[in-house]
């Protein structure tokens, strides 16, 4: 009986922690010294994870969790601190705002919404970076990050979906 309770508790904990752990793992993979697309990935993969989990498991991806993941990305990478935190919040916020519609929408609609969010965050990030760095940075590397992010979303969704089915039996 006690064993079952502990197991249940562990399962609950794992379900709550899995989206955060997956996001942090993606962050570490993003900063590995490789450039498959001839441009740094930065913490771009993390945005897809935040977007997905906010829609499908919102209790495991609260805004403060998204903010902390963004902050971790800022500290581990070299982007102006607070910038990824802000972007993570925007991604989480837009996913939460459209959650009712997106949770039952087709994959293509979700993907399109993610692309629109990525486009918005690209402009916001570029403007904020210009403000912090006091000069206009080359937009192309940031644009590549967003494009890679959107392009990899289907693959990541596949992996997230499998994890979701395994943990939540959905």
């Amino acid at each position, binding site marked *: 009986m006690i064993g079952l309770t502990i197991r249940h508790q562990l399962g609950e904990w794992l379900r709550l922690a899995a989206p955060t752990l997956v996001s942090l793992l993606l962050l570490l993979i993003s900063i590995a*010294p490789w450039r498959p697309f001839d441009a*740094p990935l930065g913490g771009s993969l993390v945005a897809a994870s935040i977007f997905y989990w906010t829609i499908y498991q919102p209790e495991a991806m609260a805004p403060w969790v998204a903010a902390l993941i*963004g902050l971790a990305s800022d500290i581990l990478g070299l*982007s102006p601190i607070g910038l990824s935190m802000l972007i993570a919040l925007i991604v989480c916020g837009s996913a939460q705002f459209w959650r009712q519609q997106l949770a039952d929408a087709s994959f293509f609609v979700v993907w399109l919404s993610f692309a629109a969010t990525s486009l918005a965050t690209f402009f916001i990030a*570029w403007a904020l970076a210009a403000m912090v760095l006091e000069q206009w940075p080359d937009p192309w590397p940031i644009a590549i990050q967003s494009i890679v992010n959107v392009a990899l979303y289907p693959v990541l969704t596949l992996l997230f979906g499998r994890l979701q089915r395994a943990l939540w039996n959905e």
Partner: protein
Amino acid sequence: MRQRSSAIGATSSLKVWFQRFSFVLLTIAAFGVLLIGKADTVMLSRLRIWVADSVGPLIHVVSAPVETARDTASDVQSYFSLKQQVETLTRENQALQDYEQQARNLKAENESLRALLKMTPSPRVTFISAPVIADASSGFVRGVIALAGKENGVVKGQAAMVGNGLVGRVQDVGERVSRVMLLTDINSRLPILIERTRDQAVLAGNNSDFPDINYLPRDADIKIGDHVVTSGVGGAFPPGLPVGEVVDVSDGKVYVQPFADLGRLEFIRMVDYGLPGVLSEDLGVDAAKQQTARPPSAAVQAPMPPKPATTQPKLKPAERPAVEQ
């Protein structure tokens, strides 16, 4: 009882209020962090290097399979061009043997001339090789994390190099890891010299793969293919370190492609030329601490030999780059 229920009511209404306004509060917090990061860069760099130090081994573990995959792909690619590579290497080897002979003659001549002039010897050059464990670049900045820190002898401000050119400079040093700002970073400014025309200028990073040259003389005659080397102005790096090649001259801008492939760094060498440099205020503090930690003569003549860094052993003196001026 009534007091207790009112306390619970207040807590739950606070919770509801926080949930409702969490986005606004967190957004304000993010802007606050942005401002703090802009105001207190020293604290920020300490925090960053502390975190990198703590998670360095974990990053190394995660990046290991990625590195293996990259190496395998590279091995497969090189297997197919093996014959061509052998021919190229044979030609290069012949040319290098000629250069080696010339370098030996010049070194002997140089030593005898120095002896004649009674010149003080240049500071000894030491370096530490370390694997790159993370590409901390993003759309906003360009940098890498290397697995060698204070305990290996890495010092802030040292030049980071690969075989064929300068990579950047050591920005922050932790106990086990160090952060290197690449030449392409938007904050990087490097005093350089156009080798052919001897024009001095500053190479400025712009977060693209091609940093541009600022402050060139108006009458400078720059051509595509011109080699760019460090000028030594500022005393951070010695003159003559290979930096890159001019690849584009358009709209009054001169773009340079670094010799080092900054997108595929596997190992880098942190080189200590024994120069104090004028990089930043906190570097001055670090340098002052070092000066007090060891005798001045030792600091100038023979920098402390670092501990063997990591998987890469310290190279023999014969393999050192010919940078002593």
